[in-house]
């Protein structure tokens, strides 16, 4: 148990090295190796969950080792209720991702090696508590993603990959500047826990070029994270990257990588700059609203099913942003409404997880139909419900989960986000409820066009979803259903940590005007 976090991070690298030694012709062996690696990692995440103390809102399983002492950089890992669900999600989706990629034909060896490298990067970001380490893992993620999209993607893959790369790089450069700003103004440390302690005071009142340092750093870091979320107007890489990426990569992109943005904002921006939270929360809610409406409208207009699902991600992450903004409800100025803050933060974090499972499911399902029909034009289908009843049923559940049907997990988190933000941002929340209508509209309309009506003659021998595909999608379905009916296990994990974060933000903020 002692080094379990390190194991989680480095296990994929071991798998990658192992794959490097397998001759490229033995494709099955490579796939099996990847499956075993990710499977073991997934199992370890479950072990971690089992040993996790959900009553403790602070960091657990901490590991610390000196790394570059001259710059005060250390190898510092830890997990809390915010990162644990994401770690489990990562383990699960990468495991499933291997099976989604089972039919990859081109350069199998390279694909799975990069796949596992990506895994290490993602795990590392979620677990590292040193900013420098965090940044390194953040960049480690970027490279395999670039190649995975650029080499195994669709027709426009190079364009999509380079766009993704530049967009994200732009964000991470700003982030790096922010990190350095923090480093030099907060006692030359990269340790996130240490920064969380000292930054609120060290930054208070600090002025740079006539601007408050908090604002500057907040904005720098926020843009870095916002590109990943993606927050309007930094979202346009997403549809393209999603559409061009191979199915498994879309799954991971939507399922995990988008969560890094929200995770980063909560972990870093909220932890280090409580005053910034108060300053920015209105904008956060507003951006959430724009995400919801804009994403919803764009999704409504799409003719490509995968692009629709991609825009639905923009829409869904908007709810998360709105929920996050609710943390200010706990402040004195807003009546110390702890209830609302808990609901909003819990909803935002729950929404991350739910969107992870639901969008993963949606992308897998899009992949299934694409593999059979070789196109994704919504108008090009029709009447598939009578041809593929099982597939239709599963897609129906996934779509209903996407449009926030009670009984499926998406509803609870969306409702919590709204309930949390409502006392503080009534207008924004009321306006964004239009989003749930748009949600329903674009999902149902697409569903009708694909599955209802007379069966398109072209597709009267389309095979039903097969066992491998069922194996990838059914677990997600079960999770969605389970948390939709009984969300308590998830909320148990996060609630202590959410309390810690809320308390921290409320207590550490100076409420000085900036």
């Amino acid at each position: 148990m002692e080094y379990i976090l390190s194991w989680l991070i480095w296990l994929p690298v071991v798998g990658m090295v192992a794959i490097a030694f397998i001759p490229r012709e033995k494709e099955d062996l490579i796939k099996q190796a990847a499956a075993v690696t990710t499977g073991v990692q997934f199992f370890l995440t479950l072990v971690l969950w089992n040993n996790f103390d959900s009553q403790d809102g602070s960091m657990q399983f901490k590991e610390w080792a000196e790394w570059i002492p001259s710059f005060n950089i250390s190898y510092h890992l830890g997990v809390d209720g915010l990162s644990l669900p994401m770690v489990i999600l990562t383990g699960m989706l990468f495991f499933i991702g291997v099976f989604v990629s089972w039919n990859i034909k081109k350069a199998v060896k390279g694909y799975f090696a990069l796949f596992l490298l990506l895994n290490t990067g993602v795990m590392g970001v979620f677990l590292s508590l040193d900013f420098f380490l965090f940044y390194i893992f953040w960049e480690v993620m970027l490279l395999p993603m670039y190649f995975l999209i650029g080499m195994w993607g669709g027709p426009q893959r190079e364009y999509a990959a380079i766009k993704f790369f530049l967009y994200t790089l732009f964000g991470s450069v700003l982030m790096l500047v922010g990190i350095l700003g923090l480093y030099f103004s907060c006692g030359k440390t990269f340790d996130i826990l240490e920064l969380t302690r000292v930054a609120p005071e060290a930054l208070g009142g600090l002025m740079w070029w006539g601007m408050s340092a908090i604002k500057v750093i907040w904005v720098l870091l926020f843009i870095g994270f916002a590109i990943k979320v993606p927050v309007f107007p930094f979202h346009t890489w997403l549809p393209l990257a999603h559409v061009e990426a191979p199915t498994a990569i879309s799954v991971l992109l939507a399922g995990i990588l988008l969560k890094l943005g929200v995770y980063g904002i909560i972990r870093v921006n909220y932890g280090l700059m409580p005053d910034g939270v108060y300053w920015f929360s209105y904008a956060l809610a507003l951006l959430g609203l724009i995400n919801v409406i804009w994403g919803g409208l764009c999704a409504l207009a799409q003719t490509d099913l995968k692009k629709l699902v991609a825009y639905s991600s923009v829409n869904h992450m908007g709810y998360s942003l709105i929920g996050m903004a609710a943390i200010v409800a706990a402040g004195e100025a807003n009546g110390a409404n702890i209830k609302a803050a808990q609901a909003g933060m819990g909803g935002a974090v729950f929404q991350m997880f739910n969107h992870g499972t639901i969008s993963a499911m949606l992308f897998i399902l899009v992949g299934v139909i694409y593999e059979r029909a070789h196109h994704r034009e919504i108008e090009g289908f029709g009447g598939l419900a009578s041809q593929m009843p099982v597939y239709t049923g599963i897609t129906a559940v996934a779509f209903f989960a996407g449009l926030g049907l009670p009984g499926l997990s998406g509803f609870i988190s969306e409702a919590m986000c709204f309930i949390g933000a409502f006392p503080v941002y009534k207008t924004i929340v009321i306006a964004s409820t239009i989003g749930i209508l748009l949600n329903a509209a674009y999902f149902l309309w697409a569903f009708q066009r694909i599955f209802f009506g007379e069966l398109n003659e072209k597709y009267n021998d389309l095979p039903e979803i097969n066992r491998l595909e069922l194996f990838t999608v059914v677990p997600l379905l079960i999770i969605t259903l389970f948390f939709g009916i009984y969300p308590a296990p998830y909320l148990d994990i996060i609630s202590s940590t959410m309390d810690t974060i809320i308390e921290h933000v409320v207590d550490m903020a100076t409420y000085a005007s900036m």
Partner: protein
Amino acid sequence: MMEHIFIHYSLFILFLPLVAFVIQIFFGKRLPREGDWVSIGAISITLVLAINMFVQMLLDYDSDFSVEASFVWLDMGAFNIRLGFLVDNITIIMLLVVALISTCTHIFSTQYLKGDIRYSRYFGYLGLFTFSMNGIVLANNLMSMYMFWELVGVSSYLLIGHWFEKDSAANASKKAFLTNRVGDIGFFIGIMLIYSAVGSFAFTDVFDGVASGVIAGTTLTLAGVGLFMGAMGKSSQFPLHIWLPDAMEGPTPVSALMHAATMVAAGVYLSVRIFPILTPDALLVVAYVGGFTAIFAASIAITQTDIKKVLAYSTVSQLGYMILAVGTGVYTAAFFHLLTHAMFKANLFYGSGSVIHSMHHALHEKHDHETDPQDMRNMGGFKDKMPITYWSMLLSTMAIAGVPLFSGFLSKDAILAGTLSFAMHHPEHFLLPLFGFGAALMTAFYMFRMMFLTFHGEPKMPELIDDIHESPKEMTGPIVLLGALSLFIWYTLPYFNPMSTHGWFTDLVVPKDAVVPGNLSANEIEEGAHHAHYLAMYISIAVATLGILLSWATYIKKAVSADQWSARSGFLYNWSLNKYYFDENYDRYIYQPTLRLADKVAWIDWELYDKYFINGFGRLTNWASKITGKFDYDVIDQLLVDGTGRISNLIGRKFKSIQTGKLQNYVLYVAAGVIILMVIQSF
């Protein structure tokens, strides 16, 4: 209170249909008879349990009976949600209604959908619906009510779209869901308004909170109107009424169960539940929406020729009545009407289903697939061919028209009395009773029009009449049962006065005081209604008679020509026939603009913002790099660097001979270099 036996019953009633749903979805196709017996068995058990509860309630005869049980569903510390059951007399009655109609529908469907390709799925969805509906009925808090509310919407979506090969069915199902969602948004905003003030979802806490004044005034009005918007969506009130007529694309038993008796009544049920927190302003909104819907839908029903459309608009109109009753304060009357309406309207739908069924078979015999089996213009003279259907439908028609001795008379009378008394207290709202009585007149007219066109007169398609048969007993059974339940006697026991609603219902469902400070108390409302009772009764008997007579004169005696009248009324007739062009206008002013907006937004996002703005950065960088590249090459590279290079080249050529490529020369130079360095160092 958790131990109360009713809670256990409720658990079974709630979850048995769900179990049936799960079994049907996963194993239905493989079971004998496609597993309809599983669903019927499950639903029958719930019916038995519901009857048991109902009998218990009658035996106890306690108007204050209420048990509650809840559990923590979601807990984050301060923020937590408890879900649970609230069982009181209203719940028990409603459970019985749902279980009864649902059982009838299940049995009816075994014949109506015989041989359907998705037979087992259909029964599964019925189970899902019954589960969700029971969930709404049993909810003790707004949150679980909202959740089941949406689930009901989904089961309705699935059932309306049962024959999804037809585009009209697929469209109707989507329309139903989306229109309901509009209402649900209001519902959810209402919930949030209340929760942010009260901090709890449970009805009891909400009532306490409102009573203590933590939420009042405009906010409370808005919250009430928000919650009522949910009811508007589900109960298909103007202007969200558009989905219900289209929902008739679903199988007729479904229309009977959901779109007549139970699901659409959920809105009324919600209004009844939240009645205590509605402020006078909110109530006024409710009353006007209900009243207008009642007369508006009735005026459409008059001209419809599709038998199910007539019934659909009639349902909208009757729901408007109930909402009107809630708005005018006599909410128990609304619930009473819900109860009676559930019985007779379900029966009317069964009857129409029976007619359509045999029309369908007759047309099938003739290999005629063009003629619409639901169009009343193709019917007529079925009375002798389908006597059971005819007679029991007649009972229900009497009930809905408000003929004394029938159940509808009692409940309608109670509503009209409440409305009248409200208008007496507030003369400025004289429109409300006018809406009520106008609608009553039209109801009597169009319902008998439907009966006459279908069952009386000469057959319009004589070639069919030989093939028209009475439906099998699985279908006639429910029809007879519910026809019988249209009689007044069942609702007034243990009393036998056909002119008074007094009976077990009024004894057990007693109006409670509103908790909003300053509202009229239940007693005051009761008093007023009581005073208006006889006046209302006379008027309503008069308008019902008038309506029936008019109808008789037009369609039996032909003393009045319907065609002439319709020609003479000009645009009014066209408006009514075309449902006041609501669908067209919504399409033109809401759907299309939204889609265009979406296209526009997507275009801006993709073609403009991304291609020009974001990629503009790329192009800018590209351009800048070209400029710098040119500068780099022409100036720095060619002039400076290459200049240096040329000089170096010159020097290099001189030293070229040193570069022998022989390793050992290099070693030698290295060693020499070391020595030179050492010598220099030593100085």
